[in-house]
């Protein structure tokens, strides 16, 4: 009987052979994304780990795309009428908030809209959060969009079972600056709300009673919590992070982190002392607590890094140029760029650096060149594109090692066609 070690050895040898063989046979060719591919600027990324699915919204339209990184299955739905700003999968439903002033629940499997949370005075909705008990959804909206002289930003509490509005609280009373932004976090039965015009308010989660209000000169943008350090971090439009001490509910200090506004902050999935920040200056920075020490800086070479998400020790960042860049963050002192996923309205392409293989659901998005610059055409091109299009490229790009459909998903299951004889 083969031992586990022997089986692993066989798998590794097979994968390595297939890779080398493919690289050797296609060594004269280069696969490129076609010029003019209609990439969508990425607005928000969410990873639904249970189904290995990456969900993405974009700035171009209101569609939400779902890419299963294990099977390559690509789906999308269009339930909103404007850009979707936040996505979260909860209890088999995809919750999305949008510039159309609503939060909607869509069935994860059927992609049919199940519930719509909105009301007449609700402005654009950039953010929502679901209460720890899973019963309520809190939406954050720019209500002055609808009623200019009314409350600038509001938080609404919705019952997720009935879809009924339970409560409205004012996140800020007036609009002092031209910018609009805001975020919500729950902590110990309290609702922390930050927003533009320097408003930072703390409410009782159940009654909605205002417990504390802090007014600063900062236009707060996003928030994240480092509960074990008893800190809540609020970023602003000028590249600062403000540290709110959760013991005292006061801002302790602030640190200048980026040149421009900080768009997204995420804690490392396995090390809660590490925080990643992304900014419109095209830079991602990695910080370590305590002391908020800068560990590394990633120059993404693209503006507006709206969103970040983690998948299997990989950092994915979506930018306005329509790329989702993938970085290997196993070694924080040596963060490596691994490749990219590019989304269009109906297709996607995943390409890893150092690999000739790619994966797409639409082969016409790619073209093949015989070096240095001659485009290969006709049946030869079709053949080579078929060879290069391999699900293994996507799975390797994102480090997928799951069990697929009851079958062990050793890398050899996704072999280049050139080695098709193994199937006989």
């Amino acid at each position: 009987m083969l031992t586990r070690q022997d089986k692993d050895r066989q798998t590794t040898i097979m994968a390595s052979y297939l890779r080398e063989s493919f690289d050797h046979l296609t060594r004269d060719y280069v696969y490129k994304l076609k010029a003019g591919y209609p990439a969508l600027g990425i607005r928000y990324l969410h990873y639904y780990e249970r189904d290995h699915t990456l969900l993405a919204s974009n700035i171009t339209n209101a569609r939400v795309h779902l890419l299963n990184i294990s099977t390559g299955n690509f789906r999308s739905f269009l339930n909103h009428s404007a850009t979707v700003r936040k996505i979260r999968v909860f209890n088999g439903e995809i919750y999305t908030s949008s510039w159309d002033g609503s939060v909607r629940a869509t069935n994860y499997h059927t992609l049919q809209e199940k519930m719509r949370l909105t009301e007449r005075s609700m402005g654009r909705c950039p953010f929502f959060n679901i209460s720890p008990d899973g019963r309520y959804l809190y939406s954050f909206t720019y209500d002055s969009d609808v009623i200019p002289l009314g409350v600038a930003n509001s938080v609404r509490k919705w019952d997720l079972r009935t879809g009924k509005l339970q409560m409205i609280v004012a996140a800020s009373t007036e609009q002092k600056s031209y910018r609009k932004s805001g975020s919500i976090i729950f902590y110990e039965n309290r609702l922390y709300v930050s927003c533009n015009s320097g408003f930072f308010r703390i409410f009782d989660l159940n009654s909605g009673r205002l417990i504390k209000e802090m007014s600063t000169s900062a236009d707060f943008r996003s928030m994240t919590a480092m509960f074990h350090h008893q800190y809540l971090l609020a970023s602003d439009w000028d590249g600062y992070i403000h540290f709110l001490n959760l013991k005292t509910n006061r801002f302790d200090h602030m640190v200048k982190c980026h040149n421009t506004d900080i768009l997204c902050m995420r804690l490392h999935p396995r090390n809660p002392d590490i925080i990643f920040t992304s900014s419109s200056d095209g830079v991602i920075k990695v910080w370590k607590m305590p002391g908020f020490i800068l560990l590394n800086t990633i120059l993404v070479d693209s503006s507006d890094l709206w969103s970040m998400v983690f998948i299997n020790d990989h950092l994915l960042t979506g930018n306005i140029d329509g790329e989702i860049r993938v970085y290997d963050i196993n070694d924080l002192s040596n963060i490596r760029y691994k490749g990219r996923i590019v989304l269009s309205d109906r297709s996607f392409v995943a390409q890893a650096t150092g690999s000739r293989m790619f994966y797409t659901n639409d082969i016409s998005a790619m073209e093949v060149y015989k070096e240095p610059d001659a485009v290969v055409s006709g049946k030869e091109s079709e053949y080579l594109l078929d060879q290069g299009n391999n699900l293994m490229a996507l799975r390797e790009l994102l480090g997928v090692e799951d069990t697929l459909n009851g079958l062990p998903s050793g890398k050899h299951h996704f072999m280049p066609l050139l080695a098709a004889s193994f199937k006989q």
Partner: protein
Amino acid sequence: MKSAFPAIGDYYPLCYDIGPYQDNGSDFATTLNFSAEELTRWAGRNHLTELQTLALLTKNAFEGHLCHLNGLSVKKLVENGTIHIDFDGDNACTELACEFFNHLPLYQEGIELAWKQMVADDPRFAGTDIQPMLFFILTNQLFRLPVAYLEAFDTQRLNTMPASQVNQLRIQFILHSTAMSHAAQRSFIEQVNDQYAEKFRETISRLYAKETVLLQLCTKLDFAHDPSVKTESELEKKYFEFLIASSVSKHERKEPVLNPELKEQEEAHDFKELLKVQIRKLYKAISKNCSEIHCQLEGNKRFRQLNEYFIAASAVYNALYSDLSSLMLQHSRLMLLLAKVINNRKINHLPLQFVDFTGLIQSQPVELREDDLITCRNVLQKNLDMQRLFNLTDYKVKYLKDEEMSAIHNEFLLRQIDYIEKRIIEVMVEIKLIMQNKAGEIA
């Protein structure tokens, strides 16, 4: 028996059942125009049971449907079976019986009318509810078999079946129909694999042989790097042990791997238990009816087809499954094979060797929920997609259809063989060098 059909597949045509009709020597396509009235009259004259009569009407509707809507002759149906593959068109694979099931409402009314007319003429069948019986025939694929074999079935219980149980039969019918359709798709994948292997036989066999050598050498190289292996004899010993272990593990019976997504489906389920029992019985029935291949000295030559069916059935049966969708698929594939075996025996005038024919048949509706149906459908589709992907079916079809692509593919396969040959030499040299270095260190 006429020699127009040298072989028969998974469908026994109506014209074979009604022997006298084919004595006029007309082409099968023209003998299709049986009216329901003619059939019921013929059934009455020959004292067929209600189940046999309804099976005749179903066959008539099925053949008529294929002829009028799909333009398929009965001859083709008998030759190729009910799995229709359009290699020249869009490579679609259709299970013709399932396609007929989808259009069943179009024919059901006609069958009911014919039945009413028959009951008016023949009071034996008065009070028969044909709906459960029709589901019974379709679910158990009885319309594929010679009607002569359907005589022994007792359908009394079906006539007194309450509406809720009829609905259960309906759900089972849809489930079976779905599984049957997927079984056809699996068959398509297998056929493509066979044709691909046939077309590129020479290149592929060379490639396979060289790949095997290379991979074994790579394993040996891996062992050579092992610090615990110091001499060439140790290397040979370790490598030999590995070869034996891998050879043994190739033949070991694999335990079923349960897909985590199917956990919900894995609740205790009477229907699944019933399926398992039926699968065993189906395999037993196929084995019994292929016994000649073991008993006779020249069995494999004389009963070539039975031998093929038996090997296929063994392969299907030996895969262990525990989830509903896989069991359904296994059941459907065995049902199709059993139909082939039975029809083959009938046409060759061999007696049936059934232990318990009625035991194979589902007449007891076991509770199934609509949810089971949806889950089963989704899982079957997902598995089918994966199978197509693993088997590279869509690509292989291209190389089978397009000669230019075929030539390019062959050229690349040859290049790959060249590459492997070079790698084999490189790896051998590398192993030798490592062992020489180790020997030098020891000295």
